Every structure is written in C-alpha cells, then in structure tokens.
C-alpha cells in the first residue's frame, strides 16, 4: 500500500513542480524580497521586524498562491481530463488515491517553500549585514519555527483543498470554498475574542446567538491564527514547547480527520 501511495505522490509532485506557473510564483516571491531590501531603509529602528514581516509574508503568500492555483488544478485536472480513470484502473483503493494525491501536494508545497525560504534567508542576511544595529530582536531559530508553521498551515489548506475536491469536480467551486475557509479561519479568532470582550462589557443579548454560531464554526474551520508566529519571529519573542506541541497536534489531527472524511466521500463517487 505504501508503495502505491508513494508512487502517486511522486507523480503528483513531478506534475506540480514542472508546471510553468511555479515560476510565476517564484518571481513574485523574489519581487517581494527585493522590495524588502529597497524599503528597509525607510524605517527608523525596527528594521529587523520589518524584514521578518516581509520575508514571512512572501513565504506565506507564495504558499497560498501555490495551494489555491496549482494544487487545486492538480486535483481537478485528474477528474476533468479523465486521467483518474487511468490511475484507478491500477489497484488503487479510493483512500489510497486521496492520500497519494495529498502527499504529492505536500511535496510540491515543500519544494516551493524551501526554495523561497532559501532566498529569504539570503535577503535577511543581506539586510542584517547592511543595518546590523537594528536587528537586536532577531533570532534565527524563531524565524525558522515561524517558517515551519507557515508550512503546516499550507499543509492544512492542502487538506481542505483535497476535501472539497473529493466533493465537487469543478475547480472553481473548490477554489471559492478553499478561499472562504482560509478567510474564515484567519479571522475567526479575532472575531470570537472581540465578541467575548463585547459580551462581557455591554449588550449580551444580541451577540449570544452570533457567539454560538461562531463557536460551531470554530469546530469546523481550523483556527489559522494559531499557526501564525510572524509577530513572535519579528521580535524574537520566546516560545514555549507546550504551545508548539499543541499547535502541531491541532494541525495534524485536523488534517487526518479531513482526509479520512475525504476518503469516505470519495469511495461513493462515480467517474463518468
């Protein structure tokens, strides 16, 4: 079984990496990094923070573009072009197909993130060299931890993409739902905690129903803010292992739940 899953993952990964669109994403990331070098001098003191902000934003946004366009395309193309008929004519179970595609997507994202991260490290080292006095708060380990959790966030998004792809074959619908999940996941924490403080201070009646809805949503959509270590990396703040472990566990368990659901749904699908 592992050999089959790995074979499909490898094929998916190669398809993704050789997609010309990947170059566009790299160019975009390079552009942001160049912007970083140009703009750093405008700020007064906290150049370390600004550099980290822009680098992690480049890494994160490049990942988003990758997932929303290339990964969704990789999933949808199989069904659109009927390549899935060929794959499923080999002894793949539906679940193996889902897991194989997912690991393939993970590999593509890993490849792209590593390359952007390498360029990013170069940029940070360069700006650090130009303005050494203003990087007081910067620590490489925290920077890499933030980069890792950005990757975990993309892995989560890939799982969401695979899940929606298992339900619908139209890539546009998958795109819309994935983007919506991302936006909800990113804003969820802010809104929930804001409403909690509002409810504590003023009118309780109106927000209670909304609060309940949001609590339900928080069980369905992942809280992407938990994976956001950008501010900590920007200022070199200390991180506890318990927090990292909890976040990792949250991400990985959510991914597993989604993929199992996707496998179950996919078992019932028919391919015309």
């Amino acid at each position: 079984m592992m050999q089959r899953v790995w074979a499909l993952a490898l094929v998916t990964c190669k398809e993704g990496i050789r997609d010309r669109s990947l170059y566009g994403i790299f160019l975009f990331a390079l552009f942001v990094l160049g912007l970083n070098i140009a703009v750093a001098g405008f700020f007064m003191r906290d150049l370390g923070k600004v550099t980290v902000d822009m680098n992690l934003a480049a890494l994160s946004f490049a990942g988003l573009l990758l997932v929303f366009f290339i990964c969704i395309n990789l999933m949808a193309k199989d069904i659109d072009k009927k390549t899935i008929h060929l794959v499923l004519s080999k002894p793949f179970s539906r679940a193996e197909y889902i897991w194989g595609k997912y690991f393939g997507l993970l590999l593509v994202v890993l490849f792209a993130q590593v390359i952007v991260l390498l360029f990013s490290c170069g940029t940070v080292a360069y700006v650090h060299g130009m303005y050494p006095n203003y990087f007081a708060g910067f620590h490489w380990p925290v920077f890499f931890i933030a980069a890792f959790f950005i990757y975990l966030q993309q892995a989560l998004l890939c799982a969401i993409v695979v899940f929606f792809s298992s339900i619908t074959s139209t890539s546009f619908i998958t795109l819309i739902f994935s983007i919506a999940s991302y936006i909800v996941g990113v804003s969820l924490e802010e809104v929930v905690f804001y409403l909690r403080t509002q409810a504590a201070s003023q009118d309780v009646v109106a927000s209670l129903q909304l609060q309940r809805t949001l609590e339900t949503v928080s069980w369905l959509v992942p809280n992407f803010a938990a994976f956001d270590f950008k501010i900590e990396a920007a200022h070199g703040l200390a991180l506890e292992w318990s927090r990292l472990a909890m976040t990792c566990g949250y991400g990985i368990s959510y991914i597993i739940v989604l993929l199992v659901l996707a496998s179950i749904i996919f078992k019932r699908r028919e391919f015309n």
Partner: protein
Amino acid sequence: MSERFDSKWWLLILLVLPVYVFFQLGSWEQRGRLRCEQTVGFLVPSQYSRVLACGYKGLLADFQFLRILTFFGDRSTNQQPVTAQDWDYFRDSIDVITDLDPYFYDPYVLTEGFMTWEAGRYQEANALLAKGAQYRHNDWRLPYFIGFNNFFFLKDYAAGAEYIMVASRLPGSPGYLPTLAARLAYYGGKSQTAVLFLKQMLAENNDDRMKARLQMRLQALENAAQIEEALQQFRNDKKRDISALSDLVTAGYLDNLPEDPYGGEWGVLENGRVFSTSKFVEPKK
C-alpha cells in the same frame, strides 16, 4: 504592401507616445497637488484592521506606519501647518498601528519625537508609550520616555522620577539613570537635569531635523544652566539678589550673557530658575 502596413503602425506609436507622456506627467502633478490639499486620510479602526489583515497584521502595521511617515513628511516638505485634526489622526493612526503590532518600536519613537515637541499632547503620548511599555517590558527606553515627558513637559517630577527608576531596572539601561532619578526627585526643575536628558536624546536620535531641534534646545538649556550656576554663586557669595542679569557680567561671574537661541529674553524665577520669554519654542514663521 506589408511594408507600408508595418510603417503605419510604427507611425501610430510615435504619435501616441507623446500623448501618453503628456498625460503621465499631468496626472502625477495633479496627484501631487491633491495630496497637499487633502486633510486627513481615512483610518480603519483597529478591531476591523485586525480582521482585515487576514493574518498579515505585522505587515499591515509596517504599511500603515509608512503612510503616517509620508503624510507628515508631505506636510513638512510643503511647509503646511499641522492642524489639531492632523494630530488626532496621528494619535489614532499610532493607536491602530500599535494595536496591530504592539511590539513595533518605531511608532513609539515617532510619538515621542512628534507628539511631545511639536503637538504638545503629552498625556496622549504617555498613554501610547504606556501601551508599548506593557508589551516591550524589557525595553528601558519606553519608561524613560514617559519619565522624560513627565519631568520636562508636565513638570510632574515625582512621576518622572518613578518612571526613570523603572527604566533603570531594565536590562541595557545607561548607568547614570539611577542617579538621574535621584536628582530628579531632589532637584526637580533645574536646567542641568534637563541638559543630561537632552544629551541622551541626542545620542538616541539619528534624524537630522530632530537632531537640529534637540541641539538648539540643548544650547538654550546649557546657556540657562550656565546663568543659573552663576546666579547661585552670586547669591551664595554676596548674600543678596541681583537687580538685573547684567549684574552677573559686571560682577565677573559670567564673561558675557549667553544668548537665547530662540530669540527670547532671560528672566529669573524666585527659586533661582532661569527662564526665557521665548519659552524655548521656535518663533512662528
């Protein structure tokens, strides 16, 4: 036939390009004029900014900070007066920026530089700096700024001394802070204390305009301190008060009466403190 066809298109390009250049220049000039006239920009309140940032709060804070810098830079280059409305916008912007990323140091420096000297809004500046001190709790500079504001502008020597003491306990603070706090508590309003503060501010700052301002003020205070010292000497020796400041020169305690760089005239308070009619503020042009 195709040759003529090609040259027709090239001719069109040659005709269209100058038109484009004209509109390019015109549009940019228009935008430049428009920016002069604009009052204040719109500010998205922080609870919405935090959500709209979609996980890029730090980056949004950086961007908003650049916007504030350009806004006030525009005002300065166009030599426009900064109105009270502008200062409200400044304060609200810094508030939003520090809500997005409370650890961001630059807004606090800008606050200390502008809201105090230029705007005179000391309490509001202190409130913003206090927010920073809460998050950047290992940064000695923030309680130091609050202490300075309390001492120099608000004349609340007790509060000033307290904040300086807090700053002195934080890592990296200069060694003279505890003594400074003690002096503040004791001497309170002497100009020499302010001179020490200003020297530190000058070392901190690397913006040329700011430095020039601080330099001027330092000169004024040093001159005032010189007069105060001479006056103290005179009183101790002669056991009586002067009738006019020129007495210090004739009696030989001063070589010559130092000038007030702000163009005002010196005066003496009862407790021996020297002040100036200019109030150490730049005359309006």
